[in-house]
């Protein structure tokens, strides 16, 4: 629901799309409405399929199966990527707000944090840096070898 409201809101406020060589230069209000609904349908049907997958093969959670299915359906052109693009880009730009309620959950673990807080923070900090460094440096080296 929120996506619908947001979608409507975003293209009501935005100036009309710039002309693009590859796509139709004028996109009507009706088409925009259709594209937003189409994107919502695409995302939620992939999510539903993903949930089904995780029910039968509980290796990954449903949303990750959904991500993989969404990528594949776009790749095999079961969904039209041009119709989906603008709404999905908008979602990606604003998805951070969805993590806020989960993040506020930290206040429920004050006791544990008092006891081991500093050690946990320090270990997380150090190992996150280690991981960033290892993956970043290694990939850069391999990528240079690839090209």
């Amino acid at each position: 629901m929120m996506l619908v409201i947001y979608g409507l809101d975003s293209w009501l406020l935005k100036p009309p799309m710039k002309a693009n060589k590859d796509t139709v230069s004028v996109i009507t209000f009706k088409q925009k409405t259709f594209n937003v609904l189409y994107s919502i349908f695409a995302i939620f049907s992939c999510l539903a399929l993903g949930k089904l997958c995780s029910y039968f093969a509980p290796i990954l959670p449903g949303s990750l199966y959904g991500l993989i299915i969404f990528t594949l359906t776009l790749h095999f052109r079961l969904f039209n990527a041009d119709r989906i693009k603008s709404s999905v880009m908008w979602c990606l730009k604003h998805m951070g707000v969805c993590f806020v309620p989960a993040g506020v959950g930290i206040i429920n673990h004050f006791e544990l944090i008092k006891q081991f807080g500093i050690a946990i923070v320090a270990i997380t900090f150090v190992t996150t840096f280690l991981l960033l460094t290892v993956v970043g440096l290694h990939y850069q080296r391999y990528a240079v070898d690839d090209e």
Partner: protein
Amino acid sequence: MITELLNNHILSSIFAVVSTIALFQLTAVFQRKLNAIWLQPMLISILAIIAILLWQDISFESYFSSSWLLNALLEPAVVALGFPLYQHLETITKQWKSIILVLLFGAFIAIVSSFVITMLLIGDYSIAVALSLKSVTTPIAIAIAGQLDGNTAITAFAIILAGFFGALVGPPWLRFIKVKSPKAQGLAIGAASHAIGTATVSNISYEHAAYSSLALIVSAVITALLSPFIINFLATLF
């Protein structure tokens, strides 16, 4: 006044969601205007909401149940990350081997280092399991932590911490150690800081978003498959 409002479920839902979004957008505007990276909208809105909840004596449960709408959007948001992945699928399939190799190595280092350091410093198995899963996206990490008798509350906490560290200091740190290609940066941040990192670097460039979401998925799968073996083996050493 806020407490009265929270008694009505529909009103409180609207209030919680609207004020969370408003806070987030306000911080985002400030961040853009002042050009300050540390004004991370997610972090600032979380801190502000914690302060408000403590000040008005509102329980986390009532805030959480009021903001269910935002939480319900987490899953479709994860699915939407498939789009940047689709756009870079061609380049990614070309470098398939090197990406898997790097992420496999990364996941191995992450699990082993976190587990060993935690066992040496704190000496608690359930916390060690929790911390060794902190770089994985929340739903997967919680599932594995439960399976391996880890502490799920600490897992959730450490995941958020790792997400913020990577999202906030990741890009400047990577630039500092001369990892400049957007691909390498995206991959590193996706592997270390899962969805929070991915959501943050998605603003930098599209390539960042694609490689970050790729790393998020691949390293989640790798960790889900690897961690039971590594942790069971390491647990016998301590």
